[in-house]
């Protein structure tokens, strides 16, 4: 819990930045737009319609779609001479801004339309210009309505901003995503409570500001305005300070499962130890989002798997016979096509494998995938979010002729619980998962050799390769450093023993750098060797 709370200032600040920027832009766009379309029948319906349609897009999808959208604009932008980042805060802010617009826009239109026509006649009668009419009569009278919309938008945006994590923007969602994956309930709880607290705080600040304005309580207005302005100035200052503070950190990405969180920490801490460069970990990103981000130098390094690159990036099907040969082909392809360097193979494989409960497999007499295919029509299979969309699954279906009674996509962490509880019969497991042993699962043999080798490989982006040989060298130091047993042990320490990925990574690197005799003692203590002992 204390570990989690140490992360709070950073996550909260990043979350606040996203929300405040999105809400400010959302308000500055929506209120004038609302005023402009109010009462113009031809414009009002279409504008509100578009805003409603945006609102109906699931928020996670809206955030996710910004990434390819911005990526496709990146070329245009660079031609115009500026750089457009398609992952990170920019797509998050754009999506959140769009998301904030409907309530503000709709309430502005309603508020302006509800102003008594007699008051408008009076306003003109006393000699107001159209602008004075708007600023002195229409807007003040519509203010409570507009503020109600702004408050709705605030609560939505603060909540939705937790979904910016998968597109590379740090937020309170980092707690929630990594907490769910690593079954760290206190992290999930901290994330939820902090987001709820932030939403309530901002909501009340705006309420106090509005009531203060309406009832002319100077102290209320001034107090709330100072706090809100302070938040804006504070976040703006930290943004500027962040970008001005020397060299940017080396950014390490991670996909959305435990092994990736641990490996991202291993990479980050290795770089810190060897080069003293600051690092930043962007966890819980989608698999292809990560590769695109690396390609465009929006992250600097991450760990992928040779078979994934082979199947989803190179889109090849015919497998080379040999694990080493595949690695060489991937290395050559990434370098020539993208300028991405395959820095090191970590030394273990994490293949997709189909797994069943030992007892169930025994009862059905199953050892291989060919045998599984025969009984598949009576069974249900569960896979992570990507699995059924992946080329490997297509290849499995094509080769073995799988036809399951039902295919169910679910969270990777829940998948193991589902198979253990007998809710699905087969799952797409990862071969390094600590839970294969702990849950009594059997991996079925890929007897026709469809699933490619999945060597864990450290990939470095073009910028890092060009500009930071020291970092590359540090990463190369990890070559062959982790065998499947160590990886499984580390996964288990996080998934089942409830330890933090950063802590497990720290223990691993410390043990590894110690002289052999102390190393064996430390590893003898196993998962219990606490971070305080290794510090």
């Amino acid at each position, binding site marked *: 819990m204390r570990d989690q709370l140490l992360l709070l200032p950073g996550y909260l600040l990043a979350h606040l930045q996203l929300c405040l920027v999105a809400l400010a832009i959302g308000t500055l766009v929506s209120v004038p737009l609302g005023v402009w379309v109010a009462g113009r029948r031809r414009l009002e319906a279409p504008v509100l319609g578009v805003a409603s349609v945006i609102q109906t897009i699931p928020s996670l999808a809206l955030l996710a779609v910004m990434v390819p959208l911005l990526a496709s604009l990146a070329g245009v932008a660079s031609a115009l001479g500026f750089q457009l980042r398609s992952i990170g805060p920019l797509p998050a802010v754009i999506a959140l801004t769009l998301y904030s617009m409907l309530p503000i826009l709709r309430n502005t239109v309603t508020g302006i339309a509800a102003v008594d026509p007699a008051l408008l006649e009076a306003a*003109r009668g006393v000699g*107001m210009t159209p602008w004075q009419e708007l600023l002195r009569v229409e807007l*003040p009278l519509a203010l409570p309505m507009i503020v109600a919309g702004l408050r709705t938008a605030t609560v939505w945006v603060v909540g939705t901003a937790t979904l910016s994590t998968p597109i590379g923007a740090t937020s309170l969602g980092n707690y929630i995503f990594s907490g769910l994956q690593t079954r760290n309930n206190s992290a999930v709880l901290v994330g939820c409570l902090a987001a709820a607290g932030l939403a309530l705080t901002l909501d009340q600040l705006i309420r106090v500001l509005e009531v203060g304005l309406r009832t002319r309580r100077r102290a209320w207005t001034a107090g709330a305005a100072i706090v809100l302005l302070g938040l804006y100035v504070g976040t703006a200052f930290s943004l500027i300070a962040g970008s001005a503070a020397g060299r940017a950190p080396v950014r390490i990405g991670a996909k959305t499962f435990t092994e990736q969180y641990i490996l991202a920490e291993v990479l980050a801490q290795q770089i810190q130890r060897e080069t003293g460069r600051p690092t930043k970990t962007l966890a819980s990103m989608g698999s292809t989002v990560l590769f695109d981000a690396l390609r465009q130098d929006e992250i600097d390094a991450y760990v992928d798997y040779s078979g994934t690159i082979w199947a989803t990036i190179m889109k090849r099907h015919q497998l080379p016979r040999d694990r080493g040969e595949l690695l060489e082909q991937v290395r050559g392809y990434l370098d020539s096509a993208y300028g991405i360097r395959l820095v090191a193979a970590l030394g273990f494989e994490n293949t997709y494998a189909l797994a069943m409960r030992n007892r169930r497999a025994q009862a059905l007499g199953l050892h291989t995938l060919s045998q599984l295919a025969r009984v598949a029509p009576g069974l249900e299979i569960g896979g992570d979010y990507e699995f059924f969309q992946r080329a490997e699954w297509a290849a499995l279906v094509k080769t073995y002729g799988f036809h399951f009674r039902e295919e169910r996509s679910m969270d990777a962490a829940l998948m193991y619980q589902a198979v253990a509880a007998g809710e699905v019969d087969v799952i797409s497991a990862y071969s390094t998962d600590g839970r294969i042993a702990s849950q009594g699962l059997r991996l079925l043999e890929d007897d026709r050799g469809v699933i490619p080798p999945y060597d864990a490989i450290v990939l470095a982006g073009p910028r890092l390769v060009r500009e930071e040989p020291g970092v590359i060298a540090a990463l190369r130091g990890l070559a062959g450093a982790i065998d499947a047993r160590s990886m499984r042990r580390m996964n288990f320490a996080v998934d089942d023993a409830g330890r933090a990925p950063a802590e497990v990574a720290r223990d691993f690197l410390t043990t590894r750098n110690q002289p052999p005799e102390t190393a064996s003692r430390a590893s003898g203590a196993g998962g219990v060797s606490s971070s305080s002992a290794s510090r």
Partner: protein
Amino acid sequence: MIVLQELTKRYADGVAVERICLEIDRGECVFLVGPSGCGKTTTLKMVNRLVEPSSGQVLLCGEDTRQAVPFELRRRIGYAFQQVGLFPHLRVGENIAITPQLLGWPAARVRARVDALLELVELPPDEFRDRPPGALSGGQQQRVGLARALAAEPEVLLLDEPFGALDPLTRDRLQQAFARIRRELGVTVLFVSHDMVEALLLADRIAVLDAGRLVQVGTPAELLAAPANRSVAELLSTPRRQTQAVESLLGGAA
């Protein structure tokens, strides 16, 4: 002071006001009367350009109002109407202060003017200045509306049934207050009313409109003595009959 020349307003579905000519002298109070839809409100609003004339013109102190900037014109002309339209988010004093503030009067002069006007419409300033308009009775709101129209010391006042929708007692008191204020300020007034008694009691001259045309203009006595046609006579018949009925009742009681 005010000259209407061939003033006409056409809408897509017909003519609202047709070629009205009328001259109003400085300090005079002229009533526009006639049945509903006869064009009296439209005529009034063409004077301060809340409605733009289709043709014809309005001269104000000999100056063509088409040459003026509309909002500047309106700041020189007081305007009060039946719905009053007091701004609910402003206090009574602030409602009255609007036009002087728009004209950039110094704050001290605005304050003094607001208090003087509240006195004039018989609302004690210390009691009413800081009240929200919503807390006022209908009659009090009409008084504030009149004060607001007078705020920037206009030479011309346009009133569109300013005492409508009030109970008879309040209405009578406000009419008497209005007569007194007009005498004190010497302001020129164009007054729209559908109440003939009000017109007969307060007007210097009455202009009778029917279906967008000016039918007759004259003093109350002239109209009573020689109505130009049947419709004018009908308008006058109600007050005449009521007066006779009241007189006979009074005679019977004496």
